[in-house]
């Protein structure tokens, strides 16, 4: 800072209009008042002008004040609204993971291990398997008997093990045979 630097009241004139404060308006008033004194020698000629200037400066003060207050209010409102907005967005994103209706299952369609068959289908397949397993066991037994020579090979008695329905023809013999075969085991 050197001598002769401009005094701070006059600096208010250099400011951007939207950055003015009420204090600046007062500084401006002071400088203008001083300048007016310089041009008036008897105090009469510029009196009207002087008071018009005072009037304009009063309006200016009111506007600057109102403007600054409004800016502050708007800023606060804007910040409040922003905060509310953020809050709502956050709430919205967290609610999309919940089940809307209970007792439902969410299945990822890309999962290779996803369930694909109904209970009914599963039951039928299991029954069929059990049947086939039983038939296999019987067939394996018979094979064993033939291999060990217990049963003659010329007359392979085709015993049709149909656990479901009994054979229609030659009831007695086949039944005896059946029984015998099974009995001998």
């Amino acid at each position: 800072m050197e001598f002769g630097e401009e005094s701070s009241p006059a600096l208010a004139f250099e400011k951007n209009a939207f950055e003015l404060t009420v204090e600046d308006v007062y500084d401006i008033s002071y400088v203008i008042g001083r300048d007016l004194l310089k041009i008036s020698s008897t105090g009469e000629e510029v009196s009207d002008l002087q008071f018009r200037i005072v009037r304009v400066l009063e309006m200016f003060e009111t506007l600057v004040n109102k403007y600054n207050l409004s800016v502050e209010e708007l800023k606060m409102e804007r910040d409040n609204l922003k905060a509310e907005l953020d809050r709502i967005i956050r709430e919205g994103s967290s609610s999309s993971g919940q089940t809307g209706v209970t007792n439902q299952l969410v299945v990822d369609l890309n999962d290779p291990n996803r369930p694909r068959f109904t209970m009914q289908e599963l039951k039928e397949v299991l029954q069929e398997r059990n049947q086939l397993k039983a038939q296999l066991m019987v067939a394996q037994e018979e094979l064993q008997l033939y291999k060990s020579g217990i049963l003659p090979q010329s007359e392979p008695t085709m015993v049709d093990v149909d656990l479901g329905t009994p054979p229609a023809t030659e009831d007695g013999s086949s039944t005896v045979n059946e029984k015998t075969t099974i009995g001998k085991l």
Partner: protein
Amino acid sequence: MEGLTLRVEHLQNENGKLQNLFQEKSNINEDIRQEVSRLSSENSVCRCDLHLRVHPKQTPALPKEYLGMLEYKREDEARLIQNIITDLKPKGVAVNVIPTLPAFILFMCVRHADYLNDDNKLKSLMNGIIQGVKKVVLAHQKDFESLSFWLSNTYQLLNCLKQYSGEEQFLKQSTPRQKKNCLQNFDLSEHRQILSDLAIQIYHQLISVMQKTLTPAIVPGMLEHESLQGISSMKPTGFRKRSSSLYKDSETYSISSILQELSVFYSAMSHHGMEQSLTKQAVKQLFFLIGATTFNQIMLRKDMCSCRKGMQIRCNISYLEEWLKENELQSCGAIDTLRPLAQAAWLLQVNKSTDEDAKEIAEKCTELNPVQIVKILNSYTPIDDFEKRVTSSFVRQVQSFLQEYEGATQLMLDTDYRFQVTFPFYPSSTALESLQVPSSLRLEFLTRI
């Protein structure tokens, strides 16, 4: 969500509108500034040309002739006092443009009460004014701005009361119109006296507040701070910003702090339109304080009695002198109050060995009494081993030259001493008829007569 967006938009619109309005108003302001500079250049033009620039709409008939008075209803008196005195802020648009306007407004009310020949109304008003000012000063007794503002306005009111009193001694510089405006019916010299006493009170309160602010900086700034290492780099700054906080951020107080504070005081008093003579008295009082406080320290502290300190003090005194010149205050007698200090500093620097030296000392130190001179000589501490202490025989020599001294023999100066304050009469050139009452003062109940 949608409602919120709408609201924000609406607010933004309002904001935009306000900004536009604002821009308009600051444009008007710019026009006014140009008008003012145009007027000031026009003023130098010959007056007879002026009628050529008259707006064609202006009719030859004169605008309404005002008498320069303000009418108010008796029941509004309390409100008047409150709005123009008690609640008035020393900083505002109206008072920044015309700082002594309150005084003029009050006087115009006084004029009207006198004009009505209503002595009750007038008495009540005068008392109301005096009480009001007392109250506001009491409420702000530590506030430098308020005190300065009201001192200025009280002094102005005093001057108005004198100028328009009708007394011969005060009429010499009045215009014919102003002479016509003098008080018609009442003699207010008693009230003037009361007002004058009040003004003296305010002045002393103001001085006290200024002294309190300045005192912590005096000894550090004048004596302790060593600025002589690099004189150019330490050249003190003059006018700084108008805050009243002392320069405390990095180092302790320096002479710059003192000068800065003086500038703050001086500029505030000017802003408030204080009459120069009063401002000068205040500055003189402050300079006395600086000088006396510093001097007393030298009396008390041996470590301050060196050649180097003497040089430092003389340097600081020259800075103070320069400050006075910058602010056109050379004629206020302030520098004379520093003479004891200046001579003490000279005494510290000068040779103190031969008889001629002793004689010179006795002759030059007119502001110092023998007790003080001897004290300084005895306290003198040489700065290095080459320098010798002052011999007691030398001291006796000096004393012998001072035998005929017949003044006071106090060692210390009285820092509380106050010069008597005077309020010389200063007429104002203001034409009361041309004064208006700005609306921001909230005095709508006054009628301009």
